[in-house]
């Protein structure tokens, strides 16, 4: 303890840490019926950290080229000690992270945490979700297997329907006209350099905003809360409770990785047919299923382009929802937006279920 004090003094003599200490001392988290949801963002962040660690480890063996990517992942899975575990944790962790991101997003949505003054926190969070999906999409191709090959083909082809710049986006994403080794090398670059650096800055903004503005109390509980505000200290009370959640998720991750190691599938073959039962990652499945129902032509227009345009508008609406929900901005109940959220959740659940259980 004495040594710790000495060390702390050593730092204290060189840098003034009193501001940080004061901030940590003062910071509190509201306690109410729904404060449980405050921990989900922390779990997502924790999973992001495990992704960075396992990702760095995988980089030691992975080779990003069409003739060696699949073999290098096979080598990781079969010859490198604990390679199967590290890769499975990376794959399961990615899926869990996106799952918790969705839970975090919908919980903040239904708690109307995006209302003034937290609009920027919501928007930065929405960008983080888009980045996480981009991480998932780019990472999916890296083992260079058949499923990923076609998922990438379909996913990147969608960009081509954007009027005017579609073809440029397609070429930028693929590194050529088709999905080839050039695409794999590009996706690797996106996955390990471009996306992490972008995420780092947006995450920093998101976290600074959360720290500066504190947690939002839902409008439905605000009146009651303001009469008798109960709080909990962020350090160490809240963070220790959060840590219990992280530990539970780590346990879940370990169990999933150990009991259900992530498969590798067949190596990609650009001249093979798309395999039966092909599906993208589960978080894209509702969009994939939607595309199946859109006819080739709608009122003389390209149906697929129209569908993607409408989906794009929907995403824009979602990102900028704080500016559309005027009632929530005034701290009034906004049932319409709650209904929109419920419809969206139901739509995602129904489409995903149809795709997995009732679709050819």
């Amino acid at each position, binding site marked *: 303890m004495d040594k710790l004090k000495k060390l702390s003094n050593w730092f204290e003599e060189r840098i003034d840490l009193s501001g940080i200490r004061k901030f940590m001392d003062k910071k509190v988290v509201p306690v109410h019926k729904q404060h449980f949801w405050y921990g989900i963002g922390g779990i997502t962040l924790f999973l992001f950290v495990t992704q960075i660690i396992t990702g760095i480890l995988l980089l030691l063996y992975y080779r990003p080229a069409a003739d060696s990517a699949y073999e290098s992942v096979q080598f990781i899975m079969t010859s490198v000690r604990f390679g199967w575990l590290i890769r499975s944790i990376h794959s399961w962790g990615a899926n869990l992270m996106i799952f918790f991101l969705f839970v975090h997003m919908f919980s903040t949505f239904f708690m109307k945490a995006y209302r003034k003054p937290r609009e920027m926190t919501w928007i930065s969070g929405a960008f983080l979700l888009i980045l996480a999906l981009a991480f998932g999409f780019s990472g999916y191709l890296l083992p260079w297997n058949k499923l990923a090959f*076609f998922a990438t083909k*379909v996913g990147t*082809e*969608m960009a081509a329907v954007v009027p005017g710049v579609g073809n440029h986006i397609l070429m930028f994403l693929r590194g050529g006209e088709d999905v080839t080794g050039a695409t794999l090398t590009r996706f690797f670059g996106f996955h390990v350099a471009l996306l992490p650096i972008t995420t780092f800055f947006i995450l920093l903004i998101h976290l600074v905003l959360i720290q500066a503005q504190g947690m939002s109390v839902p409008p439905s509980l605000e009146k009651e809360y303001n009469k008798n505000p109960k709080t909990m200290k962020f350090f160490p009370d809240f963070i220790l409770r959060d840590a219990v959640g992280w530990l539970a998720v780590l346990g879940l991750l370990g169990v999933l990785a150990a009991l259900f190691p992530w498969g590798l599938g067949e190596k990609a073959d650009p*001249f093979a047919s798309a395999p039966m039962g092909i599906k993208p990652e589960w978080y894209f499945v509702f969009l994939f299923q939607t*595309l199946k129902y859109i006819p*080739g032509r709608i009122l003389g227009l390209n149906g697929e382009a129209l569908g993607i345009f409408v989906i794009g508008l929907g995403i824009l609406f979602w990102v900028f929802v704080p500016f559309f929900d005027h009632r929530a901005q005034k701290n009034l109940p906004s049932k319409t937006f709650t209904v929109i959220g419920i419809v969206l959740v139901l739509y995602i659940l129904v489409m995903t279920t149809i795709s997995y259980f009732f679709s050819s």
Partner: protein
Amino acid sequence: MKENSKSRRTFLLGGLLSSLTAFTAMMLYPVWRFIMPPKVPESTQNAVKAAKVNELEPNSGKVFPFGSKPAILIRLANGEYRAFSAVCTHLQCTVQYRKDFKLIWCACHNGRYDLNGNVVSGPPPSSLEPFEVAISGSDIIVSKRA
């Protein structure tokens, strides 16, 4: 005097902003050109050996490379051969022949084409490009239509 210095300041600011814009554009142009991959000349191949005679059973199909793209050769139940581009016109997945449907099928979004390459159902907006099939000795040659 004050007016004068203000206009001088505005002029300098304008100059600075213009040169900053020009400088940024100058830096970004090579980056943009670097990011966009160079055009690779398309394969000029007009005909390929798709299979050997009798390699395919009646009512079956085979996907083969035609230049840099996949193509599909189908042997109908009556023994006749047909060939098409195997690139689905919806989102560019590679199609396959379904014996059970006697149709060309895309696994990605359930697009179906008949044995003339025309869309039967699903999201594809147009037909598959048909190719010519000829038998030369023991080889089946597939070529682009003139």
